[in-house]
């Protein structure tokens, strides 16, 4: 991995002290038992099919004033900021492209992950997430409106507690709509962790980690799926699976995810509608003030005219 030599990187072979804690040395089964109790309630009090979007969803736009559009999404402990900028020229490009390009960058804050510290230079996971984000957003942006130019979308993950790709896609969709980038549809995304026959909707980091850990029992389904959907057009814009699952499991997961993505939609719609209302009121206020000013100016001019005529 390329190192950033301008910074002090610390010893290369350092490992987090957590590796030696009791918490870390727990076996697969212990971890599994910890995640979910006999009643099917998860560690943070949710049921298996309950997404954080229903109770803990918090999002806003206009987070960053310098950007054309921006959004912030918080799913309990997963916190993501996204900003979108105006189209700009593509550097070092020498081929004519009728469709505009999206440039996505996903970055973890160095202190965002519970396990290891993130390096400053983009690592493989960040690159893969950036590619996934671009793939998910490409079908939804009207790219023919900015040929030969690129749209910059930056996502910064402040805190990572699972489902960070889904959160990034949701945030980017909101930021794009906020930036008034023409879009074919709103985009929503959701993650799912499969451990055995249990499906954890909107998993936390601990659940994700267990899902991609290699199980001691052979042959059980395990893995992670993230799906991005354009709800109005009923299209899947991205689907990413890792782990090992049989066909039935994937089909079932697809159904579950599709429903979850539809559940997130009202949240996002509400924010956008509220934005329109707010900006409309703001505009009305501004127009009112402008009219007042104009009236004052006209009055002043009349005053001068009478003075001029009198003199």
């Amino acid at each position, binding site marked *: 991995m390329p190192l950033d030599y301008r910074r002090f990187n610390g010893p290369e072979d350092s490992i987090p002290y957590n590796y030696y804690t009791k918490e870390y040395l727990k076996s697969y089964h212990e971890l599994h038992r910890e995640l979910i109790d006999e009643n099917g309630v998860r560690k943070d009090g949710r049921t298996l099919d309950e997404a954080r979007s229903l109770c803990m969803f918090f999002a806003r736009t206009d987070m960053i004033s310098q950007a054309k559009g921006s959004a912030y999404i918080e799913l309990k402990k997963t916190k993501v900021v996204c900003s979108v900028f105006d189209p700009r020229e593509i550097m070092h490009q020498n081929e004519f492209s009728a469709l505009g390009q999206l440039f996505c960058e996903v970055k973890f804050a160095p202190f965002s992950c519970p396990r290891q510290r993130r390096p400053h230079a983009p690592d493989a996971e960040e690159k893969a997430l950036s590619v996934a984000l671009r793939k998910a957003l490409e079908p939804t942006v009207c790219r023919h409106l900015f040929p030969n130019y690129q749209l910059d979308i930056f996502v910064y993950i402040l805190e990572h507690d699972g489902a960070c790709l889904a959160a990034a896609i949701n945030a980017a969709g909101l930021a794009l709509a906020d930036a008034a980038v023409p879009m074919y549809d709103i985009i929503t995304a959701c993650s799912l962790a499969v451990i055995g026959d249990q499906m954890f909707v909107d998993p936390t980091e601990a659940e994700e980690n267990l899902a991609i850990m290699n199980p001691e029992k052979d042959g059980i389904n395990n893995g992670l799926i993230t799906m991005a959907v354009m709800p109005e057009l009923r299209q899947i814009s991205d689907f990413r699976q890792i782990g*090992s699952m049989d066909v039935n499991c994937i089909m079932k997961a697809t159904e579950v995810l599709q429903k979850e993505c539809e559940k997130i939609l009202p949240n996002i719609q509400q924010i956008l509608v509220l934005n329109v209302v707010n900006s409309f009121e703001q505009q009305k206020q501004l127009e009112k003030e402008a009219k007042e000013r104009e009236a004052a100016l006209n009055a002043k001019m009349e005053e001068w005219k009478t003075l001029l005529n009198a003199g």
Partner: protein
Amino acid sequence: MAGLLLSPTEKIYILHGVQDDYRSDGRTNIDYRPMELETDVVSHASGSARLRLANTDILVGVKTEIDVPKPDNPGLGKIDFFVDCSANATPEFEGRGGEQLANNISNMLQRAYNSSQAFDLKQLCILEGKQCWKLYVDILILECGGNLCDAVSLAVKAALFNTRIPFVKAALMDGGSVDFQLSDDPYDCKLLEAGTAPLLVTLCKIGDKCVVDPSAEEESCSVISLIVGITGNPKYYSKDAIETPNFKCKCSTIGMNGPGSVAPETFKNAINQGIIAANSLDEALGRALLRERQECNNFKKNSYGFLK
């Protein structure tokens, strides 16, 4: 596949063919084009394979080295994939041109081999927590004729099947250092179990249907393709087929490529179709590899190398 221009009528012709499960070159939607495969082509690698699928030419070499296992997985070995898009393939790959494509393919492979049910990394362990084997799988793209992912995954599986790892005796010495004992006999080695290794199948969406192994013309009709990684069945890779357990094949990774999107129904059909295609491909690959090993053992193997 730049520079290929198709008229709308030609595209409609291809689309209608795909709808009726009969493609312009006579294949059905799940048929592959003929392939040529040869293993053990590079003498300095532990295992190697060369695959030619239509115009795509892939050379894979596996090198083995000794490494320290990761602290979170002390009992597992390591496997790393590197794809090199040589500028020989197309001038577009010159400099950093092929980097993105190469990253995509190696990422896809890494994800597909991630699960223990796809490739068991326990067999690469030498001494738990201290030493393990690390496999460097280097993939060279010599000629690029489309459908790279599938061809690469086939070649990688063949190369892994062909890989030999020397027997090593390791013992923990005083002070935590590790002592190795390696046999002088180059034939004193074990073969890797690569039966479950996944195959990647690219499904190119044309209309509402998907096709595997698209030709350049078909690729230009499509805006999105699905890549499905399906684990192999070790039954096909063993001489005594009855004794080895019959594994049900599973998906080890799914990804999408291209700027388009896909309807949920098409998506589900495509995955089912991918599994069928992968299964028959896996069976054919296993048979070919076993036959070659048989020939090798009887010293009857004809080596073709690169002259053919």
